[in-house]
């Protein structure tokens, strides 16, 4: 908060170093303090205004300026801002160089409130392709791959742009900077770094595999420093995870190269999901495949520095349909392909033989049906979100005042679930993607050419 300028203002005699700044915007006089203007940052137009010793004139709309000034004073948009389109305010804030203030006030990740998410917006996509992959950025812009196209929505979700890729259909998408995204497909060779502004391919990365065939991308992940890509050879008999430097895009190392000899298919399942576990500095790579004896898979935790597996989980009974890791909860969560129940494994017990603790009905694990096929699970903040068909479950930990200690000295943890949304939001087509960015959750559904946005209604501009 800027300090009050009253004492200086009363004195006034000092003239030049008075704390009060007067500006004339489009014919209207505004008065504020130097402190308020410095909140706009050194790069903004305001930093120069406060240096002036006469009344500077800014040739812009005064009404919009008054909103920007309120934003500077309080950090929040005043309610009178609703008389304008958000796009007006954004372009005006870009002129003054204070767009981050609007962004912070409207789409800050710290405002994410899992218990208060409501289905609030639909982002329509042109054409007839349904979204195949989505990728979000921390401030809530979202890139949607549908067919061979990628449509990007800005953080305000007011503007979009669409590019055409070489891929027949994009299967994996990960945004790596505001204008760059890594994209790959399971039927088209190479990992491409795409410029989302003009649609050009900045870099095309390939895995030089021993079979000299094409290399398709099964999954993309990233850490603050690295970009990870899980490649499979076109003949599907070898796979590997490549680590690239996120800045230079140079290949740094190759981990977990597998080749299939004979019938040992289980030994070489390509990773279909790559998640970075920042609190342990480990890469979680998981993959599964369906065979005659049911679905089997594995989860491996890689130490990138040494290139070795720290912990490997073999999934034989009730293999995961999808799996996620939560740094805040220090655990991994899976939804079982047979049971469709959520299970939890504590990362603090890393190395345990059978770490899974089923959070739902334990008896369903062995029923042999495949109820959990297509279920998605993602974590954000202190919560875990799991889709079952068209419904969304929200899992959260209940912190108990007194709890039993289990035999290894750690607390027994309690997780409870809720169904998300109002009655009218329940059901619907099967959920195909979940993403989180800013204070929003993004949901796509099978055969629907749009993205659903869930956010706290208090934050809807």
């Amino acid at each position, binding site marked *: 908060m800027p300090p009050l300028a009253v004492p200086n203002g009363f004195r006034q005699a000092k003239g030049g170093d008075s704390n009060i700044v007067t500006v004339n915007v489009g014919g209207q006089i505004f008065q504020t303090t130097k402190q308020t203007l410095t909140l706009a940052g050194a790069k903004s137009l305001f930093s120069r205004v406060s240096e002036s010793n006469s*009344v500077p004139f800014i040739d812009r709309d005064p009404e919009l300026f008054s909103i920007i000034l309120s934003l500077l004073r309080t950090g929040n948009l005043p309610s009178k801002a609703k008389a304008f389109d958000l796009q007006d305010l954004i372009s005006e804030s870009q002129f003054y160089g204070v767009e981050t203030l609007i962004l912070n006030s409207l789409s800050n990740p710290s405002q994410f409130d899992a218990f208060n998410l409501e289905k609030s917006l639909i982002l329509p996509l042109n054409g007839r392709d349904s979204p195949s992959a989505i990728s979000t950025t921390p401030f809530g812009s979202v890139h949607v791959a549908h067919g061979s196209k990628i449509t990007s929505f800005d953080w305000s979700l007011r503007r979009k742009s669409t590019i*055409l890729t070489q891929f027949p259909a994009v299967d994996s998408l990960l945004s790596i900077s505001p204008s760059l995204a890594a994209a790959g497909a399971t039927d088209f060779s190479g990992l491409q770094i795409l410029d989302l502004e003009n649609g050009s391919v900045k870099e095309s990365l390939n895995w030089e595999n021993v079979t000299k065939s094409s290399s398709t991308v099964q999954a993309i992940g990233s850490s603050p420093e690295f970009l990870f890509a899980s490649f499979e050879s076109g003949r599907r008999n070898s796979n590997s995870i490549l680590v690239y430097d996120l800045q230079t895009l140079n290949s740094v190392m190759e981990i977990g190269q597998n080749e299939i000899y004979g019938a040992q298919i289980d030994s070489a399942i390509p990773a279909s999901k790559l998640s970075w576990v920042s609190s342990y500095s480990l890469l979680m790579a998981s993959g599964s495949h369906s065979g005659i004896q049911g679905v089997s898979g594995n989860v491996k935790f890689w130490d990138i520095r040494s290139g070795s597996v720290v912990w490997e989980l073999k999934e034989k009974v009730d293999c995961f349909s999808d799996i996620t890791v939560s740094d805040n909860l220090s655990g991994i969560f899976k939804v079982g392909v047979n049971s469709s129940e959520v299970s939890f494994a504590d990362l603090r017990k890393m190395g345990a033989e059978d770490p899974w603790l089923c959070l739902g009905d334990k008896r369903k694990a062995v029923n042999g049906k495949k109820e959990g096929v297509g279920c998605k699970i993602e974590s954000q903040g202190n919560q875990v979100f799991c889709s079952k068909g068209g419904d969304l479950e929200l899992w959260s930990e209940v912190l108990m005042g007194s709890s039993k200690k289990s035999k290894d000295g750690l607390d027994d943890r309690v997780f409870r679930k809720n169904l998300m949304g109002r009655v009218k939001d329940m059901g619907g087509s099967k959920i195909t993607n979940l993403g989180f960015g800013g204070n929003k959750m993004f949901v796509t559904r099978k055969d629907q050419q749009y993205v659903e946005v869930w956010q706290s209604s208090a934050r809807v501009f």
Partner: protein
Amino acid sequence: MKPLLFLDNYHITLDCTNPYLQFHRDFRKRQGYNSHFCHRKSSSSCYCGSSSSQSLRNRQFSRYFHLMGDENSNSAPGPHHNDRIKLNVGGKLFETTLSTIQSGGSDSLLAALSNRTTHDPNPSPVFIDRDPEIFSVLLSLLRSNRLPSTSRRFSKQELADEALYYGIESHLKSAMSPPPFSGIDASVVSTIRPASEGLPSAFTAASGDGSIWIAHGGQISSYDWNLYHTATIRTHLEDITSICRVWPEIAVLGSESAAGLHFYNFSDGRHVGTTQWTDPTDTRIYKARVTAIADSQDSIFASFDCPHKENCVLVIDKSTLQIASELGRQSGNSAKHIVPGKLTWIPEKNLLVGTAVTGGAFGYSGYIRLWDARSGNVVWETSEPGSGRSSRFGDSFADVAVDTDESTLYKICSKSGDLGMADVRKLGDDPWVYLKDRNPSMRNTTSGGGEGNSVIQCYKKQVFVGRGGGLEVWSRVEGRENGVENESGEGFLHRRNYVDKVEDCERGIIMRIEGGGDRLFVSRENVEGIEVWESSHSSATVSVL
């Protein structure tokens, strides 16, 4: 008469030798305004405005810093500066800079206001007797080069009229025009429906600014860049089957029911003349009707068809409106010799492309013929079924389009529904390259070529195909299919995508597709009006709270 503008108790000075302002005065007279302009010598020169938003922003910054510099050099700062101007519009005060109002163009009304000289350090505001709210929208437009959301309180026409009054129409035009048209990201924004006999029989969007002329039931209606209806004229024709805009105000029409090529002047709605195909030496040449029209920089091409199917293409000189030559007179006694139903001019190659397609009980047949305009010779021709070593025997084309920018022919095959491409520079026995696409969601749609109507049109390096009611786009993207050289040997892939949604295709069979400006116009069988497709940067979110 009441003076419109006051300046320090003088009447505003306007340079009446300026033709643009002259026009504006005329406009005001037409609109019934009382206008009164006095003359006073003005010593200021005109400034030119720039229109790119980046440069505008830079200019605004530099203007700002310039101001600061002035203040720093003048140790005694004053509140008023010579490059600032106060306006009183309808009682509301506005303050802006001269460079902002001059950015509207050197001959706008606002720029004219700024050309006054005053030595009064504290001049009273210039009074303009117009609505202040709409002025504030236009001032925002000049300042930021974008329309603020408050502009939605006014209709597009109000804004356009008011911008015309201030002489900043081109500014408004660039701010209101849609972004470059991209088939992979387009949606229907409106449907133009003429008030009566709304089934369009022909239309042209060739002017390139997004305006369109629609022929319907013997009338022609014109819609401007804003898609605002500007005029409808009734012609003497009962039906108009082809239309070409050869000059900004001149339409050339062809009709199924009346012989000849008809010229109409749109500005006064008058019939200007008719060109007939006659030949005193051949009695079979009579009552020749026009089936297709195209035009080049200096010629009009029209295909004429006689009752006994004698046909040819006449070349009409644009400067004299006389018939300059006759291309390819033929008897019309077989599918290879019928009249061309479509004419396209390729400016870069000086080639005229004529195509004819007939659909009968035994499938489609037709030809494509290329004439050299100077010599009148046929440069290349192909007919299907039959000629050349076609790899697709029995799969003759249902429609042909020419990409004039890329000098490429595209055909849509009648049975397989495939898209064939031929480079005009490398035409030969079988120049066709058949495009493959691997869009998994479109796998089962290609066979749809045989059923229903297929139409094809090229626009902005994209190929649009209407199959029945569905609209798809083939776009080019740089790259190679898994490292393998693609069909044409160049580094391009063609990607096929739907433009429309499933519900769009239920509106009717697509009859004609044409691009103009940054719009795509689509007409459908037995559907009134013409659909307008545009791309947009707006995400068009729908609230479901």
